[in-house]
């Protein structure tokens, strides 16, 4: 099971995570990351990993 931790203080609202994995990530009205799911749904792991890698401010972490 893959889970995602997001540090909303570190987030710089680039939106890259929403761009590559919008079933897992969203932005609140201020643009700050919101993780939409407790566990990354099956088939979305690759996108979630991509989002973690792309995050410009390293606000995302995979928790296996």
């Amino acid at each position, binding site marked *: 099971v893959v889970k995602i931790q997001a540090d909303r203080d570190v987030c*710089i*609202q*680039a*939106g*890259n995570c*929403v*761009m*590559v994995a*919008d079933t897992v990530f969203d*932005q609140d*009205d*201020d*643009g*700050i990351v919101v993780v939409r799911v407790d566990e990354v749904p099956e088939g979305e792991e690759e996108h979630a990993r*991509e989002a973690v*890698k*792309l995050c*410009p*401010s*390293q606000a995302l972490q995979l928790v296996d």
Partner: protein
Amino acid sequence: MTQAQALPPLHMRRDAFNPTPELREIRETSGVRTVVNAFGMRVYLVTRHQDIKEVLSDHERFSNGRPPGFVLPGAPVVPEEEQTSARAGNLLGLDPPEHQRLRRMLTPEFTIRRMKRLEPRIVEIVAQQLDVMESAGPPADLVAAFALPIPSLVICELLGVPYDDRDDFQQRTARQLDLSIPIPERLEMQRHGRDYMRSLVERARQHPGEDILGMLVREHGAELTDDELIGVAGLLLLAGHETTSNMLGLGSLALLRHPDQLTAVRDDPDAAGPAVEELLRWLSIVHSAIPRITTTDVEVAGMPIPAGQLVLVSLPSGNRDPDFIDSAEILDIRRGAPGHLAFGHGVHHCLGAPLARMEMRIAFPALLRRFPMLAVGEDFADVQFRSFHFIYGLKSLEVTW
């Protein structure tokens, strides 16, 4: 132009679409080399994808701020008060936490959801520009008729800047960023730009409209000084029309030179998204991120760099690093190029990236569908690139259809 400026500084040198081979040579050997920047200062040039990411994500050791007394060689001495006022609100000159404070005031305007709401308006703006171009008939200068007006119209509307003022501010920012123009004149342009923005800020303070300037006044008016508002708005205006417009011009030429890929962008609605990412990577129109200053002794790619040194990262070089992506020298719009550095990395990652992406995803296919026979109307060897400009692109491009 003086003799010393026969060639731009190394990190800005290109041959049409390609970064100078000298950058590859550095990347393949030491990775970092000391070179001379646009102001004649010695800087450490970082060329590998991974090293660039490390520099840009480490804002504590690689700072965007400037120590007191820092001056550009050749720049006239400016009273400290004026300097402080000119630097206010410039997100690119700030480190966290001040940077985050300002950035978070702006980001609600650039969320992906907000961009989706804006989409129909951008579609409309693009269609209107194409109407104008079509009714004027071929040949046309694609930069003046398409690449420049679309992002300018969009940012003017978003920000609350009268589009009728475009000739003035477009010319000002173009000259401000042109290295072949002497520094005093460029600083003068900057000053005029601030005076202009001050008039808009004063108006917004009186009658805040339904635009970003109005929002900033309504929601953050008490915590922002006029200088900060001027700085923020000036940066958004400059970044909003100088960057996307060069991507639209240069990107169109890149597609015209790769007809199979042009056809895909024109005919396949799913092709535009990945194509935009790959064009961003392959063209990397921003030569380098704002130089960082080391706050302590550091090491990059095994090279020791003392505290207080300028570090410049080459975005085109990092984006063509074979350790980042296979066949890095090839334009392949189908791969999408996730992880490219064209928008930078770290806390200063382009704020307007979602807007730029949306404008390009709409504008490229719309142009190619409107003019399926679009062709370059001049010899490729004659195409004028902006060689001395801080943001790469085309001066003009004659097209027919």
